[in-house]
């Protein structure tokens, strides 16, 4: 069972992701912005972070950069409504391992997790 941190400023999306992940994975923590995401990562050292890009205080690309700089083994999937090629490239440069675009269906999320963790 993969231990997952969800970072998204939307309570609705965090709730949706929790429901999608409930059967197969463990959600160890949640964050509402990039600063919290880094703090929760250090606190829980999850196997994987599901990271939104557009968040207040600090965005998901910045947070991913800090997390992967401190822990090169970190697994991060960007989980966002933004589908811009330039931002996808920026996310990959920051160390993201995968990218799924909202709105997503349960199979897409689970497939993305499997492809990163496998």
């Amino acid at each position, binding site marked *: 069972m993969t231990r997952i941190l969800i970072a998204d*400023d*939307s*309570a*609705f*999306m965090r*709730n949706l992701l929790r429901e999608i992940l409930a059967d197969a994975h463990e959600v160890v923590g949640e964050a509402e912005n990039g600063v919290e995401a880094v703090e929760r990562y250090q606190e829980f050292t999850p196997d994987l972070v599901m990271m939104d890009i*557009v*968040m*207040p205080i600090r*965005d998901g690309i910045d947070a991913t950069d800090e997390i992967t700089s401190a822990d090169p083994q970190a697994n991060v999937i960007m989980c966002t*409504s*933004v*589908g*811009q*090629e*330039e*931002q996808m490239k*920026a996310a990959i440069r920051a160390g993201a391992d995968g990218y799924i675009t*909202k*709105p997503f*269906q349960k199979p897409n999320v689970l497939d993305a997790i499997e492809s990163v963790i496998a």
Partner: protein
Amino acid sequence: MRVDVGSLATVNALARSGAERGARALTSLTNVETRVDLTDVTFQPRSSLVESVADGEYVGVHVGFEGGLSGRTALAFDRESASAVAKLLVPGEAGDDLAQSGLMEVGNILVSGFIDEWANHLGRSINLRPPSFVEASGARVFPPAVREGDPDEQIVSFHADLATVDEAVDVDVYVVPGREALGTILGAGDGENPLAVRTLSAFAALTQRGAERAAETTSAMTGIETDVDVFRFSAVPVEDVPSRLGDDRYVGTVFGLEGTPSGYFAVLFDAASSDHVVEALVPLEDPDPELRESAVKELGNVVTSGFVDGWANALGGTVEHTPPDYVDDFGDAILSPLAGRLGQSQEVAFVLDSIVGTPDESVNCELIALPEADSFQRALDSFPIDAALDQQ
């Protein structure tokens, strides 16, 4: 750098594509098929944009964007639609906070559809800001930066109307880029194009003055005091032109225009207005139908001349119009043949659309100019921006 009307067509296509992405996203989120009812790219005075929002209570989501392009967006759900979406997203007794969060996420995803299209088209990164939630009446559903400021300033907006097939949900998406951002969009591939923005703004302003002359003419001929309520200059898919008037009945006149620009012009009163206008023009107890028709034709003739003279004078040429065709039909039926003729040579129509009316709405007249793309391009190529702006 010239104004390329093809760039307006591209901008419209991007808006359409963004709206379709938004509709797919909404379908996926709600499991109810969603369609795009309308997309347009519109130049208009700020006051017209504000007035285009119907009275009523709205739930809105604002998302700002910056970076490669900057501007504001607003989504407006009427209250029933917002409630319907919230129930679809968050069934059961999940609470208002989660429903609100769900609506904001819908806003985020819909806006991303538009912004991603531009970002990928321009090869630039555009950063979205976190969404904010508002409950507001009428135009207050727009962010202050959009609705406040000089009411006469020409601004551009991208508008899409999305609705579920069961019509339980209807949402209007407005994207309002800043002036610099618009120059970037219009200059795609060749860098900034501030001249395009100035030219289109000046052309729109000149045409608005044509509408004002039309209102003065109507007042002078009928004794009914009218004014320009709304003026818009839009780029829309040709197939969407008829739906701009819907299935309400209109009485009026349609003309062909010859010169630069050439195309079509319609002066259309809604059915009730036409009765008021005819009563004012023909003060007889029960004028026969031929006399009514003749009066409407004559008013259309004079209004049209006043409208197109501004173009002709600014461009130093002539714009002549054909004799009037009298029409009495549903709005979409009147516009369909005009759109059909334009559609033989262009995919996007340029619609100069004014509403002239009285404050009590007893008279409501639609003035719709549909220039042909090639001649519209020639008009813009030779358009004297500074002279037009000096006349303001």
